[in-house]
């Protein structure tokens, strides 16, 4: 099932495995039915990687991300973060949902600082980092705006700042740009690329957009549905710094995007 096209980082000599998903199965049991969301999924994420997870609806992409963060527990198999087994919600990750999930009564700055308040972080340090993130994501001038006064893109930037305030080991994003219009989404992709590159982040992104996945990721994981499983992984051999237009025309981009689309197409034609 799991064929690896190019030498995968997991087989290469790398020691910095940050996330280790080891053969996990997740089943949701209710009184009436039992649904297997994931079966036998394994995935390693190395320090500094950007993983994009794509797949048809209902293939358990989000469940996989939630299992890494510990919000959802595994039925079989185990997940480790930096060698520690994940048993409950983990505080060393940053999580971004599709909806910004900002507190409507807090302005942008206080929404970002919620992270610090909940964790009991050092106030001065948190404040400094908050201002830095506000500036970095272009939220300057909007610190005192309430969420409902902001566009979807700006709201998602605030959510991103909040998830980065505590400098998490890994940033997990569940379709963070899915609700944005195409232009804003593109802009956010460019910002995300720069952020990952300049801040030495490790990230995992669930997305429906193949272009977004290949543009951002160092490795694209294609999943299939019923039950959710990993179909194939592709390493994207593009430089760390990627210009949007240039990347869109790069033969490597087209090669990977083409293969991913092919796989997704055949996956959905079986339905």
């Amino acid at each position: 099932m799991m064929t690896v096209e190019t030498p995968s980082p997991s087989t290469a000599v790398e020691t910095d495995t940050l996330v280790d998903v080891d053969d996990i199965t997740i089943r949701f049991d209710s009184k009436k039915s039992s649904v297997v969301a994931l079966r036998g999924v394994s995935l390693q994420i190395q320090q500094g990687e950007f993983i994009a997870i794509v797949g048809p609806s209902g293939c358990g992409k989000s469940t996989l991300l939630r299992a890494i963060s510990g919000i959802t527990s595994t039925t079989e198999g185990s997940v480790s973060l930096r060698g520690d087994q994940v048993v409950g919600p983990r505080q060393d990750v940053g999580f971004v949902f599709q909806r910004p999930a900002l507190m409507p009564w807090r302005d942008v700055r206080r929404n970002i600082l919620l992270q610090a308040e909940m964790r009991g972080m050092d106030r001065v340090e948190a404040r400094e980092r908050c201002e830095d993130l506000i500036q970095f994501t272009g939220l300057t001038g909007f610190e005192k705006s309430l969420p409902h006064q902001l566009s979807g893109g700006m709201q998602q930037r605030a959510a991103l700042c909040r998830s980065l305030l505590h400098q998490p080991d890994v940033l997990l994003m569940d379709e963070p740009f899915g609700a944005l219009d195409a232009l804003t989404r593109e802009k956010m992709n460019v910002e995300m690329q720069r952020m990952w590159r300049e801040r030495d982040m490790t990230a995992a992104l669930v997305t429906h957009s193949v272009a977004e996945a290949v543009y951002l990721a160092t490795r694209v994981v294609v999943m299939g549905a019923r039950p959710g499983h990993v179909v194939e992984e592709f390493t994207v051999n593009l430089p760390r710094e990627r210009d949007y237009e240039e990347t869109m025309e790069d033969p490597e981009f087209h090669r990977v995007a083409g293969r991913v689309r092919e796989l997704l197409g055949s996956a959905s034609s079986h339905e």
Partner: protein
Amino acid sequence: MTTEAPERRGARTESPAKFRGNPWSGRVSAIAYPAVFLLLVVLLWWGATSTGMAPPYILPSPEDTWAALSENGAYLALHTWVTAVETIIGFLIAAVVGVGMAVIMVYSRTLERTFYPIILFAQVIPKIAIAPLFIVWLGFGPEPKVLVAVLMAFFPIVIAGISGLRSVDPEALELASIMGGSRWKTFIKIRFPAALPELLSGLKVAATLAVTGAVVGEFVGANEGLGYVILQANGNLDTAMLFAALIIMSALGVLLFLILEVIERISIPWHASHRNKDA
């Protein structure tokens, strides 16, 4: 990031201003329309009494009612004070107990199952029917009136509290668990503020019911308060005084409602119900 001018959501911040026109027109109409309607009602009332359509012992004229109000100022003020105190104490107890119950029931399924039937039972019992029992238990002081007010006001607060606390965004709670916040912090910083809009709606309903509760308590056995004034006036066939007491009672309810409305505007300015209120 420097290349981009951050976009504000124009549709929300700009367009209402265009349609709003004169920012005062909204506020004026909020006062003028009901005032005109009220004037119309008083005119009809005055017409009905001055033409002799309704005799004074059935419907007192507006002049007689005004006379009853102004000539008995001190007497009415004393009894209004009594009823107001009973109402406010009853309302405050109901608010504290109601919110506390809502919190307990949202956090514990077992306690919810235990308490819910009892709360419902307390609600469906006609308060006027148990008020005499409270008099037997608690005597003729303010306590039984406060208790009836609590019973009346309690239910909408619990219901609004439960539904408010449940309406919190589940993703916000997941986020809280990743942030490692304690249950207390999660409650204070996320769950409770999210519940405020619904809770305040419940409190507004409860405030008006608390007045009714206090007066019902007074009907059953009291020698002071607006309920007592009504019973006295009724006994003397003094409909003007009866009307005067009724008007004060309504004013008391409206006043409490307005106070909560102000609290609402201050505490949840972010809520959709308070955005562009003048539009």
